[in-house]
Each structure stands twice: as structure tokens, then as C-alpha cells.
């Protein structure tokens, strides 16, 4: 059972190389931007020198907050890419094998339909976040190293300004939790996409997206309520994972600069509120909806006669 899952998930990584290629490409772009960013900043030598001296004078808490904003910015870029990737992965997961007619070969091996569909669900909910996390950590290290090299070049003490100040473990734990929480929060969509991927005869993206757009519009014009709109769109931006703020408001534009919302954070983890997350009724309703869709996908794969 577990051996089969490992084999099936490895198979998913062979087939969907975009699971690691996409975040790697983004990581590369971020790293290049970090280098060019330093180069651009170098043009303002004097101002930067003052900033570094200023940073030297800052307290550890402020420096930690500054680095947390940088790390969270990089992480959220890759997290957004992860969600797009997850959507396309799910839509393809049970559709590609039917399109290229290899499904009969897969079904000729001793793996049940449930095992196969579950392996795809686990890939979307656990494997993709873990791969993304690993790449985020590497990107953080690269970006901070680039910044350190630049600071050292300017004659500042990078160890003191960056590495001792950076709440790495705190931020990484926080990032990992956010990455794993997001697919759980958006699980009903993942379930729906897998189900569409299992049943549609053509254009899974269109079939998956149309009801999400049309149902709220119909509801609004016919009944005048917005239950579907709330379930589809308000939900997406309102994951109850952070203390007092929704995911959409985690960054705030205060005065003239972007900063993290909420209390003065000593790292991303300090903002995470797991009891609020797991205490949310919407989360559990979403998970039930996901389970129903996944069961339906298994049923379709098992019972539909393709010929």
C-alpha cells in the first residue's frame, strides 16, 4: 500500500516535471533580480552607505522584521506560482492518461483506482508544497548570500547585519506551515479540479472554470444572494491562518513602505495561529467537499468504460 503510493508519487514527478522546473525557474529569476537589484542600489552609493550605517544602529527586532519581509516576499512569489501549478497539475492528473490512452496500461498493473487517484491528491496537497518549500529555502539562502556579499563589499559586517539577525528557523517553519495550509484551505478546489480531470472529455480548464464564474453570476441575478461568490472568491483570499489578519492583508502599505501587518513580528511563525486555522468550520467543510469530489473521481475512473 505504502510502497505503491511511493511508486505512484514518483511516477507523478516523472510525468509532471513542471512541479520542480517551474519553481526552479522562478528561483533563478529571483536570484538574478537580487544581483541586479544590488547593482542598481550601488548607483546610490552615499544613500546606501547611510542606510547600512542606519541598519547597524537598528535594533535586532527591526532587522529581523526587515529580513522577514524580504524572505516572505520571495516565498509568496513562489507560493503563488505553486497554486497556479497545482491547478494545472490537478486538471491534467486524470485527463492526460485518458487523452494518450495509456490509462489501460496503468490499469493493467496491480494498483487500484483509489490508490492512483489518492497518489494524485497527495501530490497536489503534500508533494508540490514540499518541493516548493525546498526551493524556497534554497532561494532564501542564495538571496541572503548575495546581499551578504554586497554588504561585505561595502565594508559592512554581513554576519552581524543579516545572518545573526535573520530569524531563519522561525521564517522557514512559518513558510512550511503556510505552504501546507494553503492546499488544505483550497482543498475543495483541488477536489473539484481532480474530478473535472477525471470526467471531462475535452478542455478541462474551461470545464473547471466556467461553473466557478457562472454560478455566482446566476445566483446574483436570479436569487440576489452571493453564497457561491463567497465560497469561491472571498474564501480564496481569507485563509484564517494568521493572528487577526487574513492572508490577503498580510502585507500592509504603511506610510511609504511595505511591511508585515499585525503585531511587530519576530518572524513569520509568530504570525501563524494554528488553533484559529483548525478551529475554522470553513476548513472542515472544505475538506469534506474535497473528499466527496475525490471519491467521485475514483468512481469515474473505476466505472467509466472508455471505449
Amino acid at each position, binding site marked *: 500500500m505504502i*510502497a505503491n503510493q511511493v511508486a505512484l508519487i*514518483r511516477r507523478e514527478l*516523472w*510525468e509532471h516535471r513542471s512541479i520542480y522546473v517551474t519553481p526552479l525557474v522562478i528561483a533563478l529569476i529571483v536570484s538574478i533580480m537580487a544581483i541586479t537589484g544590488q547593482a542598481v542600489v550601488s548607483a546610490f552609493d552615499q544613500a546606501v552607505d547611510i542606510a547600512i550605517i542606519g541598519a547597524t544602529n537598528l535594533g535586532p527586532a527591526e532587522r529581523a522584521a526587515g529580513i522577514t519581509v524580504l524572505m516572505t516576499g520571495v516565498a509568496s512569489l513562489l507560493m503563488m506560482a505553486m497554486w497556479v501549478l497545482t491547478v494545472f497539475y490537478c486538471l491534467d492528473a486524470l485527463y492526460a492518461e485518458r487523452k*494518450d490512452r495509456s490509462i*489501460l*496500461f496503468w490499469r493493467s498493473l496491480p*494498483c*487500484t483506482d483509489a490508490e492512483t487517484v489518492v497518489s494524485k491528491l497527495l501530490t497536489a496537497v503534500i508533494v508540490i508544497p514540499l518541493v516548493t518549500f525546498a526551493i524556497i529555502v534554497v532561494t532564501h539562502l542564495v538571496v541572503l548570500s548575495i546581499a551578504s556579499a554586497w554588504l561585505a563589499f561595502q565594508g559592512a559586517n554581513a554576519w552581524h547585519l543579516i545572518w545573526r539577525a535573520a530569524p531563519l528557523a522561525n521564517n522557514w517553519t512559518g513558510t512550511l506551515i503556510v505552504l501546507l495550509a494553503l492546499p488544505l484551505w483550497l482543498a475543495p478546489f483541488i477536489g473539484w479540479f481532480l474530478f473535472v480531470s477525471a470526467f471531462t472529455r475535452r478542455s478541462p480548464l474551461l470545464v473547471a472554470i466556467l461553473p466557478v464564474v457562472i454560478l455566482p453570476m446566476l445566483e446574483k441575478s436570479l436569487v440576489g444572494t452571493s453564497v457561491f461568490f463567497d465560497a469561491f472568491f472571498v474564501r480564496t483570499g481569507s485563509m484564517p491562518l494568521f493572528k487577526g489578519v487574513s492572508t490577503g492583508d498580510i502585507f500592509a502599505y504603511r506610510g511609504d513602505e511595505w511591511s508585515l501587518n499585525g503585531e511587530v513580528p519576530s518572524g513569520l511563525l509568530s504570525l501563524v495561529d494554528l488553533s484559529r486555522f483548525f478551529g475554522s468550520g470553513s476548513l472542515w467543510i472544505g475538506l469534506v467537499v474535497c473528499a466527496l469530489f475525490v471519491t467521485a473521481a475514483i468512481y469515474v475512473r473505476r*466505472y467509466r468504460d472508455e471505449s
Partner: protein
Amino acid sequence: MSSLVSARNVSKSFGSVRAVDDVSFDIDKGKIMGLIGPNGAGKTTLLKAVLGLTDCEGSLSVLGLDPFRQRKQLMQNICFIADVAVLPRWIRVNQLLDFVESVHPRFSRARAEELLKRTKILPRSKIRELSKGMVTQLHLSIITAIDARLLVLDEPTLGLDIIFRKEFYGNLLNDYFDKERTILITTHQVEEIENLLTDVMFINDGHIVLHASMDALPERYVELMTSGENAERARQLNPIFERDVFGKKVLTFEGIGREKLHGLGELRTPAIADLFVAKVKGAAA
């Protein structure tokens, strides 16, 4: 228990069409059974039911298992190539071997690699880079490396050239088949497998019209090639089918002693393809 596949009153409908209609049969261990029928006769549906790919009415047991409900256990002991070789195009040959090795307890990787060494297939190749013949060779190598008790082949050589088809069946007999294994095979190219089969089953419109061992055919069926007056006399003996060949009449008889036809013309055992036409068209007439 020598009966490997046992079907009792098996039916399967698609809407109002009964693709398989109240079919009963047994397939014993160590047989090579040919399942022969025209397009839409229900062959593939019946095979799918045997493989647990589709649900059906009636009782069907394969290796003592319910194929649909115990598909996983079943797949550990049977193999199938459905239709033409359709392996996933994105996978590499060695990845495919890795995968089958990790999910199939009866797969021998060493055996598969040994078989692949005889071909031009490279372990690093992707399936999409292989020719159609090579994909079939690969598929067959994997299947042959699985120590399965029942092998099901549904049109395994469709779209392959004649040299490859000959090789395919040659390898199947020499490398794979033994008294412990059973093969169930369907194909349109009946002539090619005629000498291979131990048993044959005709299916038409969802019904089994003939189920016999190849050894029993000469006793049960005889074909008479004749003309003129002799043909007229032979017709009195109730042939099941009559056709014209080069201006002569060929009459097919079922369950009649050859001695009764003696002196009426040339006698021989009908070829499977001709017998099939006789059974199907004869029943329709």
C-alpha cells in the same frame, strides 16, 4: 480446480444494447484460447469484464476472484495488452521498468532487461522516440517478464508489419507459453494465430456461437468442395453454409460423418475464418 476463467450467464448492456448477452463458458489451465468475432460482437466488452475493467451481470470468476471487485489481486496474477500498445509517451524505458518493478510482485526486471537486450530499445529512450513496433516489443517484454497465470491479448498486433507479427507469435509460443499458463487472445487476423490456438470461441451479437477445442473441429466440421449434381445431392444433407469459390460450390457441414459425403467431392476441415463466416452467416440465413 482446472477452470481458470468461469462465466455463468454473463451479460453487459450499454443502454438498450446488450453487448454481451447471457454468456457461459470455461477456460481451462494451459490453453490458448482464441476469441473471434466481428467488430461490435462483444469481444472487447467480454475481455474487459474478464479483466475487471467493467462491471457485468451474472457470475464471472477469474482465478477464483471476482474480477471487478478484486481487481488488484487479480492484476498480480494476470497480464494484458489491450488494443495496440499504448504506453505513456512521456516515460523513459528504465522509468517504466522501475515503476512496474515497484508495483508488481511477480515482475522480473532481470528477465525484462534480458529480453530488451535483444532489441534496439535503449534504457534511456523515451517512449515517444520509439517506433510503433518497438513500443509493442517493449510492452511485450514487460508482460513476458511477469510471471502471470493468465495473459490476455486484445488485438496485440494491430498496425504492425507481417515480420513483426510472425516474430511476436513465435516469441509468445517459445519464450512464454507453458502448461502452467493460459492465454486468451482476440484478433482479426485469424489465419496468423490458427496454428497457435488450442481452443476457439466465436462470438457474435453478444452470443457465443461456437466453443470448441481445435482438435475437435475436424470431427465436428467438414467442408465439401463440389459442383453440379453432386452439389445438389450434398444440399439434401443440410449444410450450414454454402459459398462460391472459383465457380465451385463449397458447403460447410456440422456434425455429419465424413463417410456420408464420400464421393461427392473434395473434403477438408474448414479454416477458422471460413468456419466463422459459415457459423455467423449460416445462423443469420
